[in-house]
C-alpha cells in the first residue's frame, strides 16, 4: 500500500510543481541586455523542459483520470451466500484488470462485503472469499497478484441498512479501491 500512497503523492506533487513553474518564471526579473542572450538560451531550454513537463503531466493526468473513472465504478455484486464473481460484472473486472496490467506500479485493495443474513463472523469469511475471488478474476484478466490486497468488512460496513432485498443486494459486493490507505 505504501507504493500506492507514494504514487499518488508523486502525481499530486508533480502536478503541483508543473502548475507553479510558469508563474515563478514570469516573476523572474530580467536585469540587463547582456543577460538577454543567456536568457533566450535558457528560455529555449526552459520551454523544452516545460513542454516535457506538460506532456508528462498530461500523461499522469490521463492515468489519474482513468483511475478516478475506474474508482467510480469499482463494485462487483453477488447473489445471497454466493462468492463467485458473476458474468454481469465481466466488463467491470476486465477494465480494472487491463488498467492494472498496463500500470504495474499501481496497487489496489479489494474489500469484500456481505448482507446481514448470517453471523458477523460467517459474513466476514464470506466477504473475504468474495474479495479473493474478485482478485482471482482480476489476475485472470491480466493483473499481477502482487498488485492486489484482499480484505473483508463482512456485514460491518453496510452501504444500506434496511432489512430488504433492495438493500441486501447493495451490500453483497466487493469494492476495488485505488485510494485505500
Amino acid at each position, binding site marked *: 500500500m505504501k507504493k500506492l500512497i507514494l504514487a499518488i503523492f508523486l502525481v499530486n506533487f508533480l502536478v503541483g510543481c508543473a502548475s507553479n513553474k510558469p508563474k515563478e518564471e514570469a516573476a523572474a526579473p530580467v536585469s540587463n541586455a547582456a543577460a538577454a542572450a543567456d536568457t533566450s538560451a535558457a528560455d529555449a531550454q526552459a520551454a523544452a523542459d516545460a513542454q516535457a513537463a506538460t506532456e508528462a503531466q498530461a500523461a499522469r493526468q490521463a492515468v489519474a483520470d482513468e483511475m478516478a473513472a475506474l474508482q467510480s465504478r469499482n463494485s462487483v455484486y453477488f447473489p445471497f451466500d454466493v462468492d463467485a464473481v458473476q458474468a454481469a460484472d465481466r466488463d467491470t473486472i476486465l477494465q480494472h484488470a487491463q488498467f492494472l496490467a498496463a500500470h504495474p506500479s499501481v496497487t489496489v485493495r479489494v474489500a469484500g462485503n456481505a448482507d446481514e443474513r*448470517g453471523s458477523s463472523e*460467517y459474513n*466476514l*469469511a464470506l466477504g473475504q*472469499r468474495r474479495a*479473493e475471488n474478485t482478485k482471482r478474476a482480476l489476475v485472470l484478466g491480466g493483473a499481477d497478484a502482487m498488485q492486489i490486497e484482499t480484505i473483508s*468488512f463482512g456485514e460491518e460496513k453496510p452501504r444500506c441498512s434496511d432489512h430488504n432485498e433492495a438493500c441486501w443486494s447493495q451490500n453483497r459486493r466487493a469494492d476495488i479501491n485505488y485510494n485505500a490507505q
Partner: protein
Amino acid sequence: MIVRWIVLSLLLLAAPARAELNIEITGAGEHQTPLSLVRFGGDPLIAHSLLEVVGGDLARTGLFRLVDPAGRLPHSVSEVRSVEWEGTETLLLGSIEEVDGGQLAVRFSLFDVVRNAELMAQVVTAKRGHLRAIAHRIADLVYERLTGSPGVFSTRIVYVNRDRDGFRLVVADSDGYGEQSLLTSKEPIMSPAWSPDGRQIAYVSFERHRAMVYVQSIDSAQRRLLAEFPGSNSAPVWSPDGTRLALVLTRDGSSNLYLVGRDGQGLRRITRGSQIDTEPAFTADGQNLLFTSDRGGSPQIYRLSLADETVTRLTFESGSTFSPRVAPDGKGFVFSLFKEGLFYIAVQDFDSAQTQILTGGGWEKKPSFAPNGKMILFATEINGRGILSTVSSDGRVKQKMVAQRGDIREPMWGPFPK
C-alpha cells in the same frame, strides 16, 4: 398460557454514569416461588435502592412472584410472625448499618414462613458506593438458596455499541448497568470474548483497516495485538484453561481454524480446505471445538476433536446455523438458526441431538450462556435498533434490555467473578 408483563425502570444508583435502561420481561417459570422483600432497617433511602436492585434481579429470572409486604416491617427473624404472612412462602428481611464511615454492613435473612424456619443468614459488607454490587451479591445468595444454582447477578457482560460516531467495546454488569468503555473506534469492533478468569477480553478491531485480533486487560486497559496476519484475523475464543485461544485466519486463502498460545506463540493450523470454517467454541473439557462451516453446502455446526482432528456434523437444519457456544455443564450447545428469513435462538443436547427453538424469531444472533447455564444472552432488534435480550434455557422467560442510544451487538456473558 399465562404471560406476565412486568416493566421495570431501574435507575442507576451508585455508578457514575446515570444511564437508564428499560427492561421488559415476558413469561414465567414453571413454578414461581412467592417471595416478599421487606424493606430493610437503617437508612430508608439506601434500603429502598437496595431492594429495588435485589427485586429487579430476582424478578428477571421469572422464578419468583414478588408479594407486597403491605406495610409489615420485621427487620429480624425474631420479629416475624409466620401466621401474618399468608400468600407468601419466603421473606427476605434485614438491616443496613454504616460502619467505619464509608462502609455498609448489610445483614439479611431468608425466612420460610410456611415451615417457620430461617433458611439463611448472612452479612455482606462493602463500600457505600458499591450498593448495586451489594444488592447483586444478596440476590445471588437468595437465588442459590432457593433454586440450588448459583446466581449470576454479580457477573458481567461484554458487547459492542454502534452509533453514528463509531464503535465502542463495552463491559457492563449483567443487568446492563455500570457501563465501562474499553475501546472507542471509528472502525468496526467485533466478536469480544472473555478470558476464563474474567480479566481480559479478546476481540476483533478494524482500526488498522482490516480485521486483527487484540487482547485487552479490563482493569489496566493494557492491550496487545494477538494476530495480524495478511487477510482477516477474527473469531477469538479462549480455551477453558486459559492457556491458548482458537481463532480464524485467512492468511492461507480461505477461513480456517487455528490455535495460538495466549502469548501469541505456537500457531497451529487446525482445519484445511477452501470452505469457510469459523466461529470456534471450545467444549467444556477443552478437547473439542464446535465451529460453523459451509463444507456441507449451507452453513452448519460441526465438532472437531483436537486429538485426531476428526470432524462430525452436529446440525442438520433446513436453514443455516451459526455461532455455537457450549453450555457450562458441557451437555449441549446454543446457536443461532436462520430459517425462512428469521433468526432464532436454539439449543441442542449432545446425547439426544434434539434441537429446541427457544425464541419467537427476529434478528436474534450471537447467543451465549450465563455461567450457571440458566439463561442465554443474545443480540436482537426492536424498532430497527440493536438491543440485548435474554431467554431462560428452558425458553419460558424472556427479557429485552433497551439502552438509550446506539445499537448493541455481539454480546457475550462473562464468567463467575474470581
